């Protein structure tokens, strides 16, 4: 039996040099090791929103849905509840996750379904040609904001820690980091928040972000301590970079909590029998 094809064959329309290619490559590498059979391919669900990030759905041949803007997380929840034996990956942009769909993000952390959520944070509405999002630094100028951004940024890592997400991580859009964090996330049961710093080559280019980053590890951080995680998250507030900027990457916080599935006997029953609601004949 030949290995299932996880490439859709669609023409890639990201800009040349787009950091989304790194995320795509990292996800494909990860999937390449996960998927050996068609059954395994079908056991992984993928959801994307609307924006540059969402084109990843066009390039990866997984079942799921390219849903509407901002609604990735409730859709992931619905898929997981519909078939708790699926492994669910949700992809969203910063517009999707931190503007249009921010209420869902906070609640998803509470629900704690076993779902992995990957935010492509390019700090800009790119596909609509460059408007500022809630994580664009002060002073950023473009056509709709001629006098520059005046509002403070959100800090999504702090937000997720406050919302009691059980797995909070940030990486740079680098193929190796993506593959690594997806493997780490796989080990954790519950809601997994992974933010990817993904400079937009056209509207929010890399001004040296990667050089400012460093990895969190057991020597410099205790990922079981929420106060320490909060401190690490405060080191960078998404408000641009200067000489002193340090951007911590890696796992900020991990906490084992009961998942939504574990607290609903209906879903436990399906998981034990390796069945979905679709298989239940009434």
């Amino acid at each position, binding site marked *: 039996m030949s290995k299932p094809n996880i490439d859709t064959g669609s023409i890639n329309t990201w800009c040349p040099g787009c950091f989304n290619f790194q995320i795509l490559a990292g996800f494909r590498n990860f999937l390449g090791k996960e998927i050996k059979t068609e059954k395994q391919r079908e056991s992984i669900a993928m959801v994307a929103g609307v924006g540059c990030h969402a084109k990843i759905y066009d390039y990866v041949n*997984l079942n799921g849905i390219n*849903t509407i803007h901002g609604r990735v997380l409730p859709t992931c929840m619905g898929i997981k509840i519909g078939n708790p034996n699926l492994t669910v990956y949700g992809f969203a942009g910063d517009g999707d996750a931190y503007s249009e769909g921010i209420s869902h993000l906070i609640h998803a952390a509470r629900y704690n379904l076993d779902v992995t959520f990957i935010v492509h944070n390019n700090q800009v509405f790119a596909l609509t040609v460059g408007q500022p999002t809630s994580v664009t630094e002060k002073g950023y100028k473009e056509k709709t904001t001629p006098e520059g951004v005046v509002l403070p940024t959100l800090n999504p890592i702090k937000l997720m820690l406050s919302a009691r997400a059980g797995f909070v991580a940030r990486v740079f859009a680098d193929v190796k980091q993506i593959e690594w964090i997806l493997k780490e996330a796989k080990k954790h049961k519950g809601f997994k928040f992974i933010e990817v710093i993904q400079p937009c080559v056209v509207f929010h280019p890399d001004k040296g972000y990667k050089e400012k980053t460093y990895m969190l590890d057991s020597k410099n951080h205790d990922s079981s301590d929420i106060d320490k995680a909060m401190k690490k998250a405060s080191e960078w507030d998404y408000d641009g970079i200067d000489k002193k900027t340090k951007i911590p990457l890696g796992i900020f916080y991990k906490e084992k909590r009961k998942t939504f599935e574990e607290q609903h006997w209906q879903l436990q029953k399906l998981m034990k029998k390796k069945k979905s609601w679709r298989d239940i004949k009434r």
Partner: protein
Amino acid sequence: MRYNILFGGKAGQGPNVLTNLLGDALAKKGYYVFYSRDYQSLIRGGHNFNMLTFSDKPIHSNESKIDIIVALDENTLRIHKDNLKKNCIILGGKYPNMHFSGNLFKILGFEFEDLDRELKELKRKYKENVVEAKKGFEEKKCEIELKKIKGNKGKFLSGTQGIALGAVKSGLDIYYGYPMTPSTPILGELAGMQEEKNILVVEIENEIGVANAGIGSAITGAKTMIGTSGGGFDLMTESLSLMGIAEVPMVIYLAQRAGPSTGVPTYNSQGDLDIARHAGHGEFNRVVLAPGDPREAQELTNQCFYFSQKHKVPAIVLSDKHLAESYYILPQKPKIVSVGKNTKWKRYSSYEQGPNGSSTEKPELINRNVEKRIKVGKEIIKDSKKFPMYEIYGKKNSKNLVVSWGSTKGAILDSIEDLNCAFLQIKYIEPFPDIEKLLKGKNIILIENNATGLLGNLIREKTGIKIEKKILRYDGRPFLSDELEKDIRGNLK
């Protein structure tokens, strides 16, 4: 024979318990019973009342004039004094409410055992209740002697319960909701069935979340229903459009209340016909069915599951506050059709899709998708012909024809008994039945619980026939059969 009993008091004083006790006992004696709930948007205080109407013949609505009033507070008498019949029996005073159950059972000629049985079935505070009920029973004498009759054999059912049963009988797996009156009671109704029926009920953070969680579950093949009212449905509309393009099977319970906006949250209206038909951007298929009583609520919810699963479309059960929260006794059993379960686990999208499931902008692929949707639309129309898309009641050959839809059915049926007219009840809003022949040459009277006659507009759109005579009620209250009879009579030829 029709008797109207009003139970009124402050929220929290428990008129519902009394209404249920008496209603149940009357039904056991063979009488037909209907009762509606009028309550304000508050938790304690204010004025709430239930109106119970019973008869030896089928009954589906209340009348305006009261035969017996149970006033749990002084306010109740003041508010309803203009509607008391001349010889109205007034029960009031500062007693625990079970005292009034004793009064009522005696006045209506029940044996104390009848009441005792009801109190036992209540399964709470029996010892206290029975003492108080006995006092109340002994205090009165029989004034209306009700004989046991060979009448109804049905059980009480509310519109909400009808929708829930229809869903479960269609194989419901998962229900998502967010509380909003009058769709809220179905959350409790279905949650209470979880264990017995192996279903899952989940409350999500808002109606947008509800609709999209619903979509997620539906594409895995779970039979999924979501529910809401007014503003909550507005929030779902972007997702309705997504169900349209992605061909997601979904049943949506839309319980109307008086709007626009927050409107009058706990009161009734049929103002959402247009939004049910048109919500969502772009052109896509949907089904909209409007039940008129709890039996039809079961049947049309079932048919919504049928259409949504077979044709992969969203299907809306359009109900309202009056239907959702009124209790009926309907002897006829619902007709339930079997519903398939064959949704494919594949690549779905909010975009127009190419053959690999990815988005496409190619004109030939867009055409293919659009034309496929048009074809499905035609198949739905063809398929709908096997169901009764409308009903005709009354004197079918009369030149007078009352036309309506939804929960007005009850009051219309009860008001036309002695009138020379027929009643056309439209159950299928989308697709719409071919009714032109039925209307031609008739003196048509449109009856709706809204201000502009939305069904009338729809009929004109589909048939070109403009209905001039309209009886419209838009104060949030349902029609009452005695008042409605006068209004219809004034419009007859």
